[in-house]
């Protein structure tokens, strides 16, 4: 059995976080999403894995090289669609195969259920089906698949995970897999719908927080760094090599902290928080329900909740984030959202900056004493 992982797309709706990496490479619970997909395949004994890369392909390839399992890489030069991506890998495919998006989480049990059923789609109910390919079923067979309908007739959506035969390639017409599936149904082929157990997609950047909460449930306990004796650690907490945690810091799991971080003293890290490597948290800072990526530094007396902070950011002291609901304009659509802040890579903000329901682009500089709420600040801006 082979598996083709599609990781060529950028994930434009997750901007600004996808500037330096495709969506599949965004770290959630400190591991890129694609790593969970590969893990689930390996657990099922599927070792013949091909990854289709495109956008920021070097980043993905470098990561795959470090995994320790041999993985084939093929390049899709232009990101025209999922079926086109699959065609890029066609020469590597020699029999039945699985197709999986590299930027969705999937558990290994669901893969076990679909892998022996050729011509099947893994499906799952979703409260907002209009962002997905909606699947209409009859007796466990797919009767119709509609890509991103305005008014969805069903809550059952395609997870983008397919089990296919090599003959699938003869049905490809357009650039998307769903078109080819519709073509197969019209040609009279039976497509099974297999229900998924646990599947997570992050359509928008703030959805990463939900995925983070879910994936932190599985983290193993590990304590490799040095924690002061006055540190209070409760629940599942994973602390990486070379990290030091100062006195009177309280960490309540599930929390994962990477390597070589410096935290505290007197910090408070609340549940559902992922902190990358080489992150600095200055004293008296409170973090909860947040993803902080590598090499970021957060000043003292800050409060960061419901937030995704990119790599290499510098947030000065007294930064505060509060959660609010609001409407966000993403790629021309207005989307209702509720989160604290999404901060792109390499941004810097001065002391006493307050964020509320806002997206800040990459390389943005904010002078400080600003209150930023319900806004999207484009890449490279300077806020004075």
């Amino acid at each position, binding site marked *: 059995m082979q598996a083709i992982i599609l990781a060529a797309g950028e994930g434009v709706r997750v901007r600004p976080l996808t*500037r330096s990496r495709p969506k599949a490479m965004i770290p959630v619970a400190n591991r890129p999403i694609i790593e969970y997909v590969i893990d689930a395949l390996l657990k099922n004994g599927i070792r013949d894995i091909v990854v289709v890369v495109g956008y920021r*392909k*070097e*980043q993905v*390839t470098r990561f795959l*090289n470090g995994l320790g399992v041999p993985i084939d*890489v093929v390049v899709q030069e232009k990101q025209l669609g999922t079926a086109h991506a699959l065609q890029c890998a066609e020469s590597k495919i020699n029999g039945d195969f699985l197709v999986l998006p590299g930027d969705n989480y999937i558990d290994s049990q669901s893969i076990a259920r679909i892998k022996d059923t050729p011509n099947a789609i893994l499906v799952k109910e979703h409260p907002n089906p209009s962002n997905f390919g909606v699947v209409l079923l009859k007796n466990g067979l797919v009767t119709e698949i509609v890509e991103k309908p305005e008014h969805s007739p069903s809550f059952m959506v395609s997870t983008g995970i397919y089990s296919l035969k090599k003959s699938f390639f003869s049905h490809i017409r357009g650039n998307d897999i769903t078109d080819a599936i519709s073509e197969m149904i019209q040609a009279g082929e039976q497509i099974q719908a297999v229900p998924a157990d646990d599947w997570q997609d992050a359509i928008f950047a703030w959805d990463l927080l939900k995925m983070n909460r879910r994936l932190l449930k599985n983290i193993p306990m590990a304590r490799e760094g040095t924690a002061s004796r006055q540190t209070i650690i409760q629940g599942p907490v994973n602390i990486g090599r070379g990290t030091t945690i100062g006195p009177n810091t309280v960490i309540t799991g599930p929390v994962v902290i990477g390597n070589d971080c410096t935290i505290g003293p007197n910090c408070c890290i609340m549940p559902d928080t992922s902190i990358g490597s080489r992150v600095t948290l200055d004293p008296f800072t409170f973090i909860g329900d947040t993803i902080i990526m590598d090499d970021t530094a957060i000043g003292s007396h800050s409060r960061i909740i419901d937030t995704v902070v990119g*790599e290499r950011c510098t947030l000065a002291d007294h930064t505060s984030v509060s959660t609010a609901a609001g409407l966000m304009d993403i790629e021309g659509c207005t989307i209702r959202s509720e989160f604290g802040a999404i901060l792109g890579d390499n941004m810097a903000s001065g002391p006493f900056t307050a964020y509320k329901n806002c997206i800040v682009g990459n390389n943005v500089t904010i002078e400080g004493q600003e209150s930023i709420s319900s806004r999207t600040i484009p890449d490279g801006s300077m806020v004075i």
Partner: protein
Amino acid sequence: MCGIVGYIGRRDAAPIIVEGLKKLEYRGYDSFGVATLGMGIDLVKHQGRISEKACTAATLKGKIGIGHTRWATHGIPNDANAHPHTDCLGKIAVVHNGIIENYADLKRNLQSRGHTFRSETDTEVIVHLIEEEYARKPDLLIAIQAVVPKLEGSYAILVIAAGEDRIIAARNASPLVIGVGDGEFFAASDMTPVIEFTERAIFLEDGDTVSLSKKKIEIFHNGKPVARSVELIDWSLEDVRKGGFAHYMLKEIYEQPQVFYNTIRSVDPGALPGKIRHARSVTLVACGSSYHTGLIFKYLLEATCGIPARLEFASEFKYFPPPINDLVIGITQSGETADTLAALKYAKSSGCATLAITNVLGSSVTRVADIILFMRAGPEISVAATKSFIAQLAILMQIVNSISEMKYDDVLQQAHKAIEEVLLMDLSQTVTACKNAQSIFYVGRGPFYPVSLEGALKMKEISYIHAEGYAAGELKHGPFALLSPETPVVALCMPGDTYSVMISNIKEMKARGAPVIAIGTDGDRELPDIVDIFIAVPKTPLFVQILTSLVIEQLLAYHTAVALGRDIDKPRNLAKSVTVE
């Protein structure tokens, strides 16, 4: 500079040797050959690259074999000059890496005794000498031990003979490692061909001869049996594979943030030996790219620590009187660069403390120098040095940091972030401007002068476009005459001491009509208006500006060479490390 591989064991030797030689191609790729011990000696050798025409060689039968991939030194690359070489009767075959300096005398004597030579190589004298000794007493080990003292120069040789179930190896001043497997042994110029089969290795000393049979290994030094320790190698095969990258060079460029960080973390600036921290003057010896890192170090050390530093090409060092009590630093990625080795030996014999900076554990230089600092770059396959360059700089910057009492700790710990940042930059506009140029000039001042030398070296190495690096002030003293609208100039113009005078230099060049590509920092208001293409790297301290501008130059050279369809990882006429003087 050549690569050799030998195998003895339970598997067919030829496929293992062919694969091994492909991995050693970076050491030379003019011709290749494989000899195995079947009924007699079976031999296949060809001019050209093993990766292109290996098919016939891999079908040879036999469980014992030797192979060679050549970088021509004596005799043009053709089929006859390809190794292995055989004696007059075709019963003994030898592969050799190195140069036999007294081969002309030996050859004349041998010819006078009736030996026929089929090639122009220095190597062939070895096999005829062995033939004579073997005729006297048919024991291959004894024959080789009798021949070795007659050879002057550098060699790592592997020998097989019909009727002998073993491989005999000998080394002097050329690299040779023995891989120890289960009921099988490997011999190779470095670990890359071996690592797939075993992690256990024995590094030989100069003057060792070795007998490898299926069951056992016997090592002799000056005729007496000796024991050498078996070391565990922690490179995995994954480390030496290209992964999904189009070229090793690109892979290695992308490894640089991690390599820099690992190297910085591996050197504790507070714990460096006193000979380094209390050095009163420093002499550096290096070749090629390493010379440029040395020059950057010279600027940094003299400017920030006030310690005088002298820099020489390793090949020229011996023509000067030796320094009196300097610390002498030799920089060599491979640890095998013959000129650097000779220079360090020369310095050591004059009583200087010696420090070697190298990437290869167990390489020859580690047995020469008093102090060794390893760069944590991992194996570098691409001929054009990228990550080893950054790793060398990491060590040298740590030395500056150490001498200036950890003033730069923070800067160095954070530097990898900026390198990661510049890897994302889009240089397509600049590549378009460079790819059709006949000549490209690189100019900079202060520490950016060596940076521009390195940029020009990378460009000419892999894109074959003529490129020169100049100190910006020197341009007016001659090279200015070459400027025209067809010669792009890459100007390094970073904020700091050199900024304002660089601006006026750039204006002068613009006035001569040369298109100027400037590498500056984010938020520069003046520069983008006066140059044709402006490349902005993140605003960082000086040490990091050097690193980021280097990475930009690497990427520019790489993408230009790709646009021109060049053979990136094996540029014509070049070899990875130069083990002859």
